[in-house]
């Protein structure tokens, strides 16, 4: 199994940390992982993306031109990465702020209203975990218990009290994801 993912959105949405949690989860189940950020002069409000690869084998290139899955969280990223999904691949996106919805018929498309759900849960910071939940419902490449282990490993101890909230956010994402197109 090799899953090549791009997560793209605004800086400050938790794009990079979502990728990091996914990578940690892969490590927790003995897989190979790579995490390659766009590290340009990005800042809060600018665009940010990260390529995450989780595989049973040694990972070749950490930099890719096409992906099994694109997780897209703003319009600029939709414009850039919709076409980069492999035929038969998966696109997960939050329709919040999207003006041109994805149109490809040869990929599986799912939407998750993560910004809305996170705000309903009273904490917009868990937005990225709602998205992660949606993705893992569609592509269960890592087990939820390993995500929780990964969170424990990647978060400083003073934030461990927030793990339960993160778990709820993942569950929320899993419940709220909607299928838009089946390839």
């Amino acid at each position, binding site marked *: 199994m090799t899953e090549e993912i791009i997560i793209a959105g605004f800086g400050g949405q938790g794009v990079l940390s979502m990728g990091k949690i996914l990578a940690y989860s892969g*490590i927790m189940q003995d897989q190979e992982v*790579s995490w390659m950020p766009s590290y*340009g002069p990005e800042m809060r409000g600018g665009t940010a993306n990260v390529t995450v690869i989780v595989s049973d084998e040694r990972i*070749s*290139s*950490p*930099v890719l031109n096409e992906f099994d899955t694109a997780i897209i969280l703003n319009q600029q990223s939709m414009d850039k990465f919709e076409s980069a999904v492999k035929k038969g691949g998966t696109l997960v996106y939050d329709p919040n702020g999207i003006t041109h919805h994805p149109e490809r018929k040869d990929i599986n498309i799912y939407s998750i209203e993560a910004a809305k759900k996170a705000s309903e849960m009273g904490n917009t910071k868990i937005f990225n975990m709602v998205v992660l939940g949606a993705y893992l419902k569609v592509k269960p490449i890592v087990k939820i218990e390993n995500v929780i282990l990964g969170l424990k490993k990647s978060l400083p101890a003073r934030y461990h009290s927030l793990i339960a909230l993160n778990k709820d956010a993942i569950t929320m994402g899993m419940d709220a994801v909607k299928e838009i197109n089946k390839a």
Partner: protein
Amino acid sequence: MAKELKLMKGNEAIAEAAIRAGSDAYFGYPITPQSEVIEYLMAEKPHERTGMVVLQAESELAAINMVYGAAGTGKKVWTSSSSPGISLKQEGISYIAGSELPCVIVNVVRGGPGLGTIQPSQADYFQATKGGGHGDYHLLVLAPASVQEMADFIGDAFDLAFKYRGPVMILSDGVIGQMMEKVYLKEQVPRLSDDEIAEKYPWATIGKPASRERNIITSLDLDSSKMELHNIHLQSKYRQMEEEEVRFEKINCDDADYLFVAYGSSARICQKSIQLAAEKGIKVGLLRPITLFPFPKKQISEMADKVKGILSVEMSAGQMIEDVKLAVNGRVKVEHFGRYGGIIPTPAEVVDALIEKIIGE
């Protein structure tokens, strides 16, 4: 004891591995894309763990001259920077090479020339492998292609620096520095005590005992006949490196019709290109130089007899290709493919270049 597993950036891995390799001091000045090296060291406070000194100098010039001074005392010292900062350090590096002092210099390369860009590049190959500063000297150059190798090579680099009494460079780039991967960390190697240094490194300037003459560390000798002998001695070390230290990795080379030569992050990209080419029925292998000086000339020469053409893939306008061509000596077609100025080539672009430039119609 099991080795410790972590998820780290290349820049963090090299910093942690340097502490564990028993290094005595780091002197540096931050610059993207390698600022995490000094950030990690400052946060980790290695002085409390091993007594290692970490100092942010006022400039790259100060940092390299602190390395020069500390290396003279037989300590394991290192510095890191990125391209423009490494250019600033070249005077000091030439002096260190001339004075025959061991140290490690890490270059996490970004696009140039000038201040250039903060994105990854491999355009410092000439500077790293052909000298860099003035005078006839070489650095031994190691090129990591993964976070694991960032961690592993710092210890190797110190060993080689002391074996040859000269500066060793780890030539990385923004991809390897910024990406996170799994890394297995080695256990702590104790720092040498002052007595151990005095015994192992009789050249070190650590105070003159009555039993020996004064140790003098200098790169200056106004007597040209002595300076020529010194140069001949330096050259003999470089020839010994060419005999003993060449490192490389071959992937998929056994029945390859074509060959990629690529190092560092380009070698990672080429591994994906090998898979994409195979889907098109093209058999291509990869020879990855791990030491860029000494360069794996013999191994490339051998491959030249087995393949129909070679593509040198570099994030530069074509620098390593000159060494590949010297090794091949005209026997098969050698072409270059690269992107510059901070653009990373995609695996598909590399395959297209192979088809267009080497395989032809």
